[in-house]
């Protein structure tokens, strides 16, 4: 399948990018582990040798790939624990945030889109559509900061950062408050574009001959809208949503930075600064997996809903 090639390419490129940084970025893990003042070239050589960083680049890539196939994903330099463990610890936070945001954006986006299409031309439609355009035009980091201003500073009821209050990590109720602002921020622009997309897809169908004929034949406008338009428009909408999923699961660096959310995004930023390559490689693997999954889902849903759309 075409997708397989595309995905393998992406995955390969991600991995290669990390190794390139390994080779080209000044200041390797040795310097950061030893500290700037204890650092001597001899010590650096010794540490690099231990970490296997003094071999040639192709050799390092090959060794890594072999290790991965054997199930060994490397050890984090900074944490001195298996890199996979380090990534998995943070994955939960990212998945919770991404999953909830995805769900919210689907629900809100679809509803708003349907509503706007149903009331096309009215003030409701104009309000929703312009609102959606405005949301898309807002950078997500500023949306997040704006929400903090609103919820934490002015209203003072929502926390501005973190996962959960101290000592209450297990308390789901307490954690919910901490999720509100980040989830809203993350879901907003996807919901908005999904809404606009849904709206236009529905309008397109409504304008089609098929529907006009059906309407002429007397079926009530409502039923037309719901039964035919939705099913016809479902395919592209669902497919787009599935492709969006990749972004939600990859870990948003922006949202996590703004809200101090300890997920994969923050881990990526910190790991680049620390030159913690094993962790970066595992994160790349995860990103690749996510892209595969999203694409596969999109394909699957396409086939399921409308076999005619199945291509190549």
């Amino acid at each position, binding site marked *: 399948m075409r997708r397989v*090639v595309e*995905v393998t390419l*992406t995955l390969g*490129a*991600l991995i290669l*990018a*990390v190794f*390139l*940084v390994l080779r080209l970025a000044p200041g390797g893990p040795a310097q950061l582990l030893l500290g700037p003042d204890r650092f001597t070239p001899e010590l650096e050589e010794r540490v690099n040798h231990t970490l296997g960083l003094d071999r040639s680049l192709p050799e390092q890539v090959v060794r890594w790939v072999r290790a991965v196939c054997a199930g060994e994903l490397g050890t984090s330099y900074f944490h001195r624990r298996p890199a996979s463990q380090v990534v998995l610890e943070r994955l939960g936070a990212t998945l919770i945030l991404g999953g909830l945001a995805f769900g919210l954006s689907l629900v809100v986006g679809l509803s708003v889109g349907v509503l706007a299409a149903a009331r*096309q031309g009215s003030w409701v439609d*104009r309000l929703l559509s*312009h609102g*959606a*355009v*405005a949301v*898309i*035009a*807002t*950078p*997500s*980091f*500023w949306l*997040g*900061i*704006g929400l*903090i*201003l609103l919820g*934490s500073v002015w209203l003072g009821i929502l926390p501005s950062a973190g996962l959960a209050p101290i000592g209450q990590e297990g308390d789901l109720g307490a954690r919910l408050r901490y999720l509100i602002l980040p989830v809203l921020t993350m879901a907003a*622009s996807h919901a908005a*574009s999904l809404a*606009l*997309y849904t*709206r*236009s*897809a529905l*309008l*397109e169908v*409504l*304008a089609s001959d098929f529907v006009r004929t059906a309407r002429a034949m007397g079926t009530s406008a409502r039923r037309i809208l719901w039964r035919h338009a939705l099913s*016809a*428009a479902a*395919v*592209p*909408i669902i*497919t*787009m949503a599935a*492709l*969006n999923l990749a*972004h939600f699961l*990859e870990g948003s*660096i922006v949202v996590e*930075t*703004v*809200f101090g959310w300890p997920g994969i995004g923050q881990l*990526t930023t910190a790991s*680049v600064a620390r030159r913690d390559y094993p962790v970066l490689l595992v*994160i790349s693997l995860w990103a690749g997996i996510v892209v595969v999954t999203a694409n596969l889902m999109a394909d699957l849903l396409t086939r399921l809903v*409308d076999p005619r*759309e199945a*291509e190549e």
Partner: protein
Amino acid sequence: MSCYSASGVQDIRRRLGSRWGRAVLGALALLLVLPSLVPLDPYRVDLEAVLVPPGPAHWLGTDDTGRDLLARLVLGARATLGIALAATLLALALGTLVGALAGYRGALADAVLMRLVDFGLAFPSLFAILLVAAIVPPGPGPLIGVIGATSWMATARLVRAAVRQLAGAAYTEAARSLGASPSRVIWRHHLPNLTGVLAVVGLVQFSRSILAEATVSFLGFGVQPPVPTWGNLLMGAQTAVFTAPWLVLVPGVALMATLVALASLGLGTAPTRLPRLETEVHHHSHPASPQPTPHPTSRSIDGRPEVVVPHPHQPGPAAGHPVLPTRS
């Protein structure tokens, strides 16, 4: 002599020509030259006036070293808009190159290049920026490069589709049969038509580049302080929110206002219709289904896929054709 309906482009032109459109473009141009005209010093430190809220002495307040926010905002506009412009041009150039090659050359080149496009879309761009920042110290140059390198894909797709249509058009055959060389055909007939497409895409890309610059500088990987841009004025703003909210509100509102104004021209990050030739190409292959399977045409720098959607302003159902580039 163009042979496709340029109603999409004309639409844009009309909107741009309207009073509102001219006002917006005028304002943007003004922002670019304003720093040179107005005698404000964005670098002047004043330890006596640290973190002053907006007032008569400093209309928009000051930052943590007493620098005037209005001055920094004005200079920041030039940086942000300038970088966005440069990145847009880069993206257009790259996209046109790839798209044209794919359209004009044979199926193999086409396949390879389109895979390149797909891969480019799937690669997480912020991750790429982090990696680049580790190798090359961040600054305006690398920033323009990275934004350009992560946003040429939409242009490539559209140029390719346009080119394929043009290449198959009747008048091209006519010109060729009259003995015109391929390059002459390209130059005299195709390019002028492409400019329409490129203009629309370029303006969309401009919006997205502003967004990208803001996000990357906010994270600290773009233009470095003390040089101000709208993005890095907000760097770390989420902690200043409690003590100095004007530092957060002012640059953010400026950004939003610009982007919304651009969007209102139908040139927002969710752009309006593109030249109808796109739809025609598609409808030939799928007459029965009303929708092509969507594929994101582009991704904003923070990963949000953007699909071309018609502007809500469009009157009537007939105008509501969503224009979606196909995968083939």
